[in-house]
């Protein structure tokens, strides 16, 4: 399971007081030393682990037979020299080089010629309203796992061009905004669980949660985020959400394994992670979890893996646990972009013995 991104330390200091010549000489000397070190840098290390063969193909799939494509699949050939876990990430761009959607794959390979697959989310292709053919670009092949470390093996910006798809050929996402309002006092431990069934294709399953905001609150609700060594605390009118607990769990059943890829948009940067591969237990249940999902950005979470033999659908269960400190009236505009369709179960338990709601209302607009 990928863990939260880090925030780079900003090391700022004022140069205003450093005008004296002797000080400037020292600074110039230090800069010269730093530049000398920088010029000695090299980029590559280690032997070749794997390479992209340049063999690509694409096709769109309608998993649930509703007449709309759910995914655009791009197969990529890879040549593996060093056996192990590999991640492939890539983006689709339109003819005017506008970025449309990201995807990732992660598999455990022996050596030799292998195939990886990027399943691009149909909901995002439809939502962007940009027609193909699409260019597959910014492709990165990486060896390793989230726990052991990753090593880039191959990077290519202009890899492949897909067939001529129309965005309207893909499934239309539904993202209504919801409002939760009320007034109360006390501490609640809130657990939200989502159960859903996802059809398989070619023995695999994949599900994308695209554009998920953390926290999933619309801009009309002011949210103050403060960081600490334990994580991030959120403050909204009438509600305070401390950093811990922050358990986020994904369980897949009737599978052979589970992988999770995450793309986070943070400011003007994009960060990607792909988890290690978690194998299923004897009952065919695989689980990935994290306690470090951080706020302040938009996420694309991709859940994928191999289904158990002859399974036509897999069950996915996502759950998150948070503590809420409610003190007075609140009204939250909830941005449900990216929320999965499925059965939601919400469990609220009063902490410290007492909690009261004077009123609570949930509006689905």
């Amino acid at each position, binding site marked *: 399971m990928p863990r939260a991104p880090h925030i780079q330390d900003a090391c700022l200091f004022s140069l205003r007081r450093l005008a004296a010549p002797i000080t400037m000489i020292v600074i110039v000397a230090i800069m010269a030393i730093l530049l000398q070190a920088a010029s000695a840098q090299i*980029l590559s290390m280690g032997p070749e682990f794997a390479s992209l063969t340049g063999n690509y193909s694409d096709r769109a799939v309608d998993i649930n037979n509703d007449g709309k494509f759910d995914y655009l699949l791009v197969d990529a050939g890879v040549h593996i020299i060093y056996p192990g876990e590999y991640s492939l990430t890539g983006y689709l761009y339109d003819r005017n080089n506008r970025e449309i959607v990201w995807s990732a794959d992660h598999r455990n390979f022996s050596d030799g010629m292998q195939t990886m697959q990027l399943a691009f989310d149909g909901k995002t292709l439809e939502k962007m309203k940009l027609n193909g053919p699409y260019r597959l670009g910014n492709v990165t092949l990486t060896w*390793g796992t989230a726990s052991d470390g990753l090593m880039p093996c191959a990077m290519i910006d202009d890899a492949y061009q897909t067939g001529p798809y129309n965005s309207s050929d893909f499934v239309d996402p539904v993202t209504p905004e919801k409002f939760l309002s009320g007034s109360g006092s006390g501490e609640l431990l809130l657990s939200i669980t989502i159960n859903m069934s996802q059809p398989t294709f070619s023995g695999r399953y994949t599900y994308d949660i695209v554009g998920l905001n953390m926290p999933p609150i619309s801009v009309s609700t002011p949210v103050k985020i403060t960081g600490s060594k334990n994580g991030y605390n959120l403050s909204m009118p009438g509600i305070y959400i401390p950093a811990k607990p922050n358990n986020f769990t994904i369980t897949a059943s009737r599978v052979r394994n589970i992988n999770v890829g995450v793309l986070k948009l943070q400011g003007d940067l994009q960060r990607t992670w792909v988890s290690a591969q978690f194998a299923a237990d004897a009952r065919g249940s695989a689980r990935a979890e994290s306690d470090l999902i951080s706020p302040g950005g938009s996420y694309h979470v991709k859940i994928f893996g191999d289904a158990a033999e002859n399974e036509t659908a897999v069950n996915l269960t996502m759950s998150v646990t948070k503590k809420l400190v409610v003190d007075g009236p609140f009204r939250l505009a909830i941005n449900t972009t990216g929320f999965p369709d499925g059965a939601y179960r919400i469990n609220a338990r009063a902490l410290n013995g007492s909690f009261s709601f004077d009123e609570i209302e949930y509006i689905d607009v």
Partner: protein
Amino acid sequence: MTGVKRIILFMGVLFIMALSQSAAAQNVTYLENLQTKMQEEQASLMESLQTFDKAGANVTHEQLTDGGKTYNVTIYKDKDGNILRELRDSDGNLYREVLISSGNGPILTVTYSEEGDVAKRETFEPVGLRKYTEIYDKDGSKEQIMQDASQKENNTLTTKVDKNGDIISKEISTTPGLPDGCTFCRNTGQYECEKKA
């Protein structure tokens, strides 16, 4: 700015420089210890290379282009999953041997000169991104390079040794080992590559 302030500032800068020197010195000790371990590992891998059970291995063939030249590659895979890749030029001369240990283990790469002598030995540990390299010169001297790419700065120790085994020079430097824009993240415990949105 008064003279006293200038002196204090200058002393401060000197203090920071002394601290960075101290950090570099600490890394030299760390890398020397790591190099000793990697040398032992390399010796063990050399033994494994020499005793690799080619006769009992599954054998496949492929071609590979490196530095503009095409090599014939023979791939041996033993019963434990260890892989030996032998690269030979079109005349059949051995160019490179790559021993890949099973289970995310280390990789030993031995490159030969046109004369058939060992030109370079490299041991790479993918878990941790550590590499120890020995580059041999015709005059009998060699260069030993210990690199730990998980360390952001002062992560490479280069030692030059003469033909008698005496150290000629020792230098610490920074070699990232990852492409531009890729960094090690302490929180995620993995390497991340950023790109402009």
